[in-house]
């Protein structure tokens, strides 16, 4: 390429060259995501106006009042969307509204909002400013609104849709506002917007780069019709575009009143100062940490289509006020699986982890991450290419909320100031039911249940985790009202929010429990469920400082039976408990099965039962340090079994009265400490006999082993090794072909020798 360019340059006169440059500039074939925007997560430089203002005498009292007014407006618009939104995600808090500086840096979000949603909007916003604002066929005017959902232009996944609007004052853009909802349905190959079955970006449904759908504060009906025509739920698409627009319009109205009352100078200064203050404070906090390196990793046990071991590598280095997050050595991207993530989405989720679990006292904007650098391998799971599908990016992204938390805990423990209690891992997989079909009202729909918001919290250094408290990506989201859901959907919950006994990360402080839910379908035209989570072979949320991880989880089904008949004829045979139901197998003729947590869309007959758990948080500290009285309380609350109390916590008590025997407990724990010393081996001796030079040959392994520059992919004779700088996507075989080959081999073996 370079050679040809040089030859051409040599042959062109200055005028010709200028003509060529102008032609190329004006005639882009396609405006894809711009790496200059997408790979830069730092706050931009001050504008001249901002610089002049921040170098002038500012009235801190006025700035504080402006900040308060903006927060009130963001809170108000959050409530508007929550009250009016149609998407289940909107009703239960998976949304945000936000305000940005004139150059597009996120300055503030609604106090209750989900940080990650607005933490990605500055990418499409900067794209609009760079490409559309000056394009004669598009432009940027007062009253314009841009819709967007493609994560390659900046988003978490394409089920979230945003409305982005410029705010004009005296003919110039003074700031921007946005409103984002997890919408769900987006016309993908499976209903509900998160298709585990997607094998290419073309299977993922709507892929909207930012485009103008609103002119003069009105939704353009032709474009809205195109969007409605592209998804399963035209009502959802219609209503929520309008809901997001009106939230933006209300924000703009409030901003205008701020300008009228305090002047545009105070608004501009406040928006910029929000960001700079956080950046300065973050650098100060990094300087408080010890210099050094902390290494951690996590293993994901599947692609949602097959079981494979996928490494997420994370090394954090701190030196002075610099922090580097190095995720190199992680798995290559999967060319035909949907669990890849773009680098921008990854960074936004890690930044959110900082705001939720590390420095929750900071104002919520992206400056919390501006001082941090990220190193990644291109074409990897965590920095996937333009062509890689990414609609189930939540699989690695959810780990991005907890892995940095674990790493940073080791930097923060020695710091003289705590900004929050040291936190173990929140549960970190998107367990919920995704559904699709025709409702009892004859409407076609597809979406997800808000139970994704019911994850157990991690244990802290001073207390147990909270049960089913929040999703790992937010803190004010709810799990939904079943009665409201049943009015709209043909989905019935036979058991809801039944805490998952014995399924939690144990420790000195235990994680918060998740809950079991048993659901079925009734009065549907056609109906089906899917689930999209990993962590069925290898635990998902790891513990801290001796604490244990969350357990692994199993999707359970009772099929080929109508449980409503059973409830009519023999109600006693139906136990309202997942474990009892599965172990007793009391319903005659039913087919019981236990599976991985990832299930592609599956049609369901009325009365068939599907059962999952919300995951539990991880533990903190040594189980033998747990206050025996807390163990007794867990027994009283039926959170653990006697077996767990005795075999794991080594607590001695009377089984009937639950009266603690303090002395016997002390002796039992001392005995366990002695037996640990007997069974433990010196480190060097252990390493010499246990460690292997490469991943076990029969294990489908993706990612580095001990050397992060050597990346493995696959198993057996098919395994390849890639070097850093030359990572390539991996194409997986169709699981059905794999199964057919297995069965054919069995058949051949069985019939061999029969002639």
């Amino acid at each position, binding site marked *: 390429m370079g050679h040809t360019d040089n030859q051409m340059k040599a042959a062109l006169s200055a005028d010709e060259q200028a003509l060529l440059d102008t032609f190329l500039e004006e005639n882009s074939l396609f405006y894809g995501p711009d790496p200059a925007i997408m790979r830069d997560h730092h706050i931009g430089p001050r504008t001249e106006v901002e610089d002049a203002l921040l170098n002038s005498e500012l009235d801190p009292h006025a700035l504080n009042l402006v900040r308060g007014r903006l927060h009130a407006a963001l809170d108000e618009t959050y409530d508007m969307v929550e009250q009016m939104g149609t998407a289940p995600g909107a009703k239960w808090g998976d949304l945000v509204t936000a305000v940005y500086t004139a150059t597009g840096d996120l300055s503030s979000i609604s106090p209750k909002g989900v940080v990650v949603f607005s933490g990605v909007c500055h990418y499409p916003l900067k794209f609009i400013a760079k490409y559309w604002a000056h394009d004669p066929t598009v432009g940027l005017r007062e009253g314009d609104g841009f819709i967007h959902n493609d994560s390659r232009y900046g988003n978490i996944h394409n089920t979230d849709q945003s409305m982005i609007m410029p705010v004009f004052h005296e003919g110039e853009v003074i700031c921007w506002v946005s409103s984002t909802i997890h919408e769900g349905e987006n016309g993908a190959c499976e209903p509900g917007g998160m298709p585990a079955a997607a094998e290419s970006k073309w299977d993922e449904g709507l892929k909207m780069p930012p485009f103008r759908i609103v002119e003069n504060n009105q939704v353009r009906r032709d474009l809205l019709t195109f969007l409605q025509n592209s998804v399963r739920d035209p009502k959802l698409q219609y209503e929520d575009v309008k809901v997001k627009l009106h939230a933006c319009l209300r924000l703009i109205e409030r901003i205008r009143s701020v300008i009228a009352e305090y002047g545009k100078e105070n608004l501009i200064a406040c928006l910029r100062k929000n960001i700079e203050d956080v950046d300065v404070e973050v650098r100060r906090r990094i300087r408080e940490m010890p*210099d050094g390196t902390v290494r951690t990793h996590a293993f994901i046990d599947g692609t949602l289509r097959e079981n494979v071991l996928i490494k997420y590598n994370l090394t954090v280095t701190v030196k002075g006020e610099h922090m580097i997050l190095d995720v190199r050595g992680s798995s290559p991207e999967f060319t035909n699986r949907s669990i890849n993530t773009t680098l921008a989405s990854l960074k936004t989720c890690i930044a959110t982890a900082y705001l939720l679990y590390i420095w929750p006292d900071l104002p919520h904007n992206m400056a919390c991450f501006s001082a941090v650098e990220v190193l990644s391998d291109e074409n990897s799971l965590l920095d996937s290419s333009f062509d890689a599908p990414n609609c189930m990016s939540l699989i690695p992204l959810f780990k991005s909320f907890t892995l940095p938390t674990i790493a940073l805990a080791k930097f923060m*423990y020695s710091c003289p100031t705590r900004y929050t*209690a040291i936190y173990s891992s929140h549960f970190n997989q998107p367990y919920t039911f995704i559904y699709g079909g025709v409702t009892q009202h004859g409407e076609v729909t597809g979406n997800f249940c808000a139970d994704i918001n019911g994850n157990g919290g991690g244990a802290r*250094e001073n207390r147990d985790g909270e049960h089913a408290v929040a999703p790992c990506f937010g803190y004010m989201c709810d799990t939904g009202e079943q009665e409201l859901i049943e009015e709209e959907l043909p989905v019935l919950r036979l058991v809801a929010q039944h805490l998952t006994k014995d399924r939690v990360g144990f420790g000195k402080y235990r994680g918060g429990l998740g809950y079991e839910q048993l659901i079925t379908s009734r009065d549907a035209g056609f109906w089906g469920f899917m689930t999209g989570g990993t962590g069925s072979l290898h*635990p998902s949320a790891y513990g801290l400082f001796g604490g244990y991880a969350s357990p*692994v989880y199993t999707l359970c089904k009772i099929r080929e039976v109508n449980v409503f008949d059973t409830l009519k004829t023999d109600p006693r045979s139906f136990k309202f408990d997942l474990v009892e139901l599965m172990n007793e197998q009391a319903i005659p003729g039913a087919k019981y099965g236990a599976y991985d947590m990832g299930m592609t869309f599956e049609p369901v007959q009325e009365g068939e039962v599907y059962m999952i758990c919300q995951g539990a948080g991880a533990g903190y500290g040594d189980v033998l340090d747990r206050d025996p009285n807390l163990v007794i309380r867990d027994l009283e609350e039926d959170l653990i079994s006697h077996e767990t109390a005795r075999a794991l916590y080594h607590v001695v008590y009377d089984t009937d009265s639950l009266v603690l025997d303090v002395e016997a407990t002390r002796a039992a724990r001392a005995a366990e400490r002695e037996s640990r*010393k007997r069974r433990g081996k010196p*480190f060097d001796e252990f390493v010499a006999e246990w*460690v292997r030079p490469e991943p*076990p040959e029969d294990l489908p392994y993706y990612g580095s082993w001990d050397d992060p520059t050597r990346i493995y992919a696959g198993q057996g004779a098919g395994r390849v090794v890639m070097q850093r700088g030359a990572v390539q996507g991996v194409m997986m075989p169709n699981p059905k072909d794999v199964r057919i080959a297995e069965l054919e081999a069995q058949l051949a073996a069985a019939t061999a020798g029969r002639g």
Partner: protein
Amino acid sequence: MKIPMTEYLAIDLDREMWECRCCGHVIQSARENYKKGLLVYDRNPREIHKPLLDTTKYQRSFAPDPAWCALLEYYCPSCGTLVETEYTVPGHPPLHDMEFDIDALRAQWKDRPAPASVEIPDDDERIRKLRETHAH
């Protein structure tokens, strides 16, 4: 001066050694991997995360698969405290998870008062105080 680095580990800056915070046992040079001075046990993860479903009926049972998940437990050789757990893949080299710059650490603590018990912001307490401030 002894700097607490985790729930169970401190670095003694004078001796440049990792120490157990429970029993004071001197573990390993602070310039090396602290794990080298601990005992390791390859725990079957199913002993901690027990199968809840009948394993004669189901392959999946809420218990990890030992071929896919190893659980290393690190014990203090003196007091038997479970200093750290490491969930990994069978045969994967244990992580050198904490490698601090001891000279920088010493310089950092030169002007700081000796570590006392750190005040942990108690969320309930903070919310109570906030409510009081807003009440008047």
